[in-house]
């Protein structure tokens, strides 16, 4: 908008008015922030997908996109849409640079996790109690495994658990809840204090973990704290928990994987599609853009429902079914776009703009998707091998739920008999 010359004003001739037949009265926008939505982020967004593909949610002041092609088209369109870092929810009161995309940081993360996966898995599974008492597979295996791996990758020294926990609290404060925001601010201050000590201790040390790599890059404590907060440590445990929840509640599917373990990778991809841990993601219009039959003004919040898009019947046959032999799902890691082999991939990570590189250089670290996929498949195969007769404990049906609006959709309690 130029201030001089055109006086800085323009006319809005774009048609904004809605017609009687275009009302969205099949959905009450309050249902999208209701308690029921946290337990079931599929049904109401499914109504949007089939009726109002770009839904103007007046209560939440956002546009909902729910169809697969629409959602992925926004992910890859960084000319028109931007993501805002989690920390921006704190309104600029806490600042630091996210160095998570630096190759040194990515390489050390990958190296540390690759080195730790086998011993951590063995230790986790060895520690399960013998006997007939039911075991919570989520807290004892999936969460424990993810915690140990990330703790090892982030800081091999002391404080690794505290660092992870503080970063989790800061992330939790980025939602709508003011109490969580206050707790997040306090946690960020603690995180910075703790990282000052850890960074000082790592200065000049060999790059053995992420904090050491950050110290080597000259990161301030605030930068390191921001990097930790922006690091996604929740998708791995949540997706693993959801995979096992789906396998154990779909005995026929589990039997197929037991008979043919190579299907585990497909089962994991199918679990990501069926029950994505990141049920929704936000993008913002960088400038005014007309898309999806609507004028999206500058700054408009575009709320992308991966939950609805992953069950788009335009892409997937019987989308509500969990089917490990599904033929219409991409079965390998897509490189920068959502389709490989002409098939749609599950939406779980925002892939961003497709790479112009014809292939990933050998020495570059694997993508977070590939890394997570490898860990999850290795862990699930190990669990299957160790406990082939594992069954759900009776009278404790598992369920999945969003921990908060915009949070993680996951199974939290999965009681099983392993013997």
């Amino acid at each position, binding site marked *: 908008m130029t*201030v001089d010359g055109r006086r800085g*004003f323009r*006319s809005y001739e774009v048609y904004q*008015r809605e017609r009687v037949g275009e*009302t969205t*009265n099949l959905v009450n926008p309050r249902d999208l922030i209701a308690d029921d939505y946290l337990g079931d982020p599929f049904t109401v967004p499914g109504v949007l997908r089939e009726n109002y593909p770009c839904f103007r949610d007046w*209560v939440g002041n956002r546009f909902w996109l729910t169809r697969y092609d629409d959602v992925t088209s926004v992910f890859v369109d960084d000319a028109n849409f931007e993501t805002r870092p989690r920390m921006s929810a704190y*309104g600029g009161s806490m600042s630091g640079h996210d160095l998570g995309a630096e190759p040194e940081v990515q390489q050390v993360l990958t190296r540390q996790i690759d080195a730790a996966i086998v011993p951590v898995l063995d230790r986790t599974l060895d520690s399960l109690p013998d006997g007939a008492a039911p075991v919570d597979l989520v807290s004892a295996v999936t969460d424990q495994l993810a915690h140990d791996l990330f703790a090892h990758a982030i800081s091999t020294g002391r404080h690794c658990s505290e660092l992870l926990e503080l970063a989790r609290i800061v992330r939790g404060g980025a*939602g709508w809840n003011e109490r969580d925001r*206050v707790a997040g601010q306090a946690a960020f201050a603690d995180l910075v204090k703790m990282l000052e000590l850890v960074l000082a201790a790592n200065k000049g040390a060999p790059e053995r973990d992420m904090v050491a790599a950050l110290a080597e890059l000259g990161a301030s404590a605030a930068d390191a704290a921001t990097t930790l907060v922006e690091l996604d440590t929740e998708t791995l445990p949540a997706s693993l928990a959801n995979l096992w929840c789906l396998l154990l509640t779909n005995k026929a599917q589990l039997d197929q994987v037991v008979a043919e373990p190579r299907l585990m990778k497909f089962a994991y991809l199918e679990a990501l599609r069926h029950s994505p841990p990141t049920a929704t993601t936000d993008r913002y219009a960088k400038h005014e853009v007309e898309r999806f039959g609507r004028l999206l003004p500058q700054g408009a919040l575009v709320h992308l429902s991966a939950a609805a898009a992953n069950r788009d019947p335009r892409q997937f046959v019987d989308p509500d079914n969990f089917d490990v032999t599904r033929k219409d799902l991409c079965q390998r890691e897509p490189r920068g776009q959502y389709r490989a082999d002409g098939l749609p991939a599950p939406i779980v990570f925002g892939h961003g703009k497709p790479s112009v590189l014809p292939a990933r250089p050998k020495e570059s670290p694997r993508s977070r998707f590939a890394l997570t996929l490898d860990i999850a498949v290795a862990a699930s195969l190990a669990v299957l091998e160790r406990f082939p007769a594992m069954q759900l404990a009776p009278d404790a049906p598992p369920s999945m739920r969003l921990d908060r609006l915009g949070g993680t959709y996951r199974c939290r309690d999965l009681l099983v008999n392993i013997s």
Partner: protein
Amino acid sequence: MSPHPIELMALGQAFDMGCGPDGTPLIDPRLFDSAEFRRNPYPYYRIMRDHYPVFHDRLHNCYYVTRYEDITACYFDEVGFNTIPKGSSSGVLGNTQLELSGLEHRRRRNIYGRHLVGAALTKRLPSIERIAQDLIAEWFTAGSGKEAEVDPNSGTATIELGKAFANEFPISVVADVLGIPQDARAQFTWWYDAMMSGLGGSETHHDGLVARQDLEDYVEDLVAERRAAPTFLYDDEGNVVAMDIISELCHAEIDGDVMSTEEVTSNIALVVGGGGETTRGAIMNLWYLLLQHPDQWQAVQADSDLWQPAFHEMLRHSTSIGGQPRHNTFDVEMHGVHVPAGSLMHMVDVSANHDDRIFADPERFDIFRSDLYSEKILRSGHNKDGRYSHMAFGVGPHLCPGAWISHQEAVLGSQVLVGALPNVRINRERMPSDKVATNELAPIGLGAIRTLWLDFDTP
């Protein structure tokens, strides 16, 4: 997530939503969807003004600006805080001058703004008074649908002020100025009521669209006729004052081009919606407040000039329009809060009117207050000599163009009403009680009361 965790409180007290480590009270954004907030908003706005003058509501993806001085500054900065539609009203009304800025806004606004002020209005005051008298005459006309209920023993008559007067009076005045035949009066109330309550995508959005379509169907032929042959407004002597607003809209040229029928009907919808509901609410709230303050009521009866300050104090105390949306054109930082460009920023007029940095003891209704400017409404606002204009009509380029006619309607209408309602009092049995202090009348809260049952003596 429970949608309504906020309990009802005694008026003036805030529900405890928790505190930060330094004791600062927190705001739970679910508050803004709660019945408590609609009924008892002022203690919460006080918390926001004192602790979060720019509050980022991350549940509803918007920011609230709550202090008088900040809102005034934003209203005057129409480049920095634009009116680009993000859906506040354009979904129902269509594109109107509400969403324009600068020259384009002024050109359109001036087409009909001048009908609502100055000589054009003054010459038509007698006809406004006549509309009021005609409505009152229907109270005692069998079959009018507005008959007063009269108790033959006591001689006490009862009316519901909305149905008997306030629903139709403002819209009849507006219909006159617009040039809509009075035979459509029966639909007026529904049109504006449904359209205004359908704004903002509320549960009544669908009804708003239906009413808007019905209005369009009605005025479509009218617009075609006026394009061919304009019609005029006349004063009491039969002299032409100006073209009526619809004719004016049909014939006005902007950049050498006439407006499309769509734009004309959108602006008609805006005038019908804005001119109906707001003044209805003003008359209802004014009478409700005055009748609950007997000393002030006596004073107004003794001196009819006091209707003017009473009208302004009512608008300061309980305006029926909560505020206006703006969007920041650039990234801004206000009170330490970073607001990215294009964010929805609510300018909360209701809170500005209760800002104790400006108005002493703001929750008190007092038509004699010395810090409120109570004369002719100015686009530039008024803030000198310790007197400040209220924010009910906004200030700056987007000051309500109907502010002055609304003022005249409410004051004139009330002066006529007083004569028709001897010994008037609120019929408390038919009025809703407060949900907490059940022996008290329900407060106005946000918006305007829907019904006001009045008893008065018949000769």
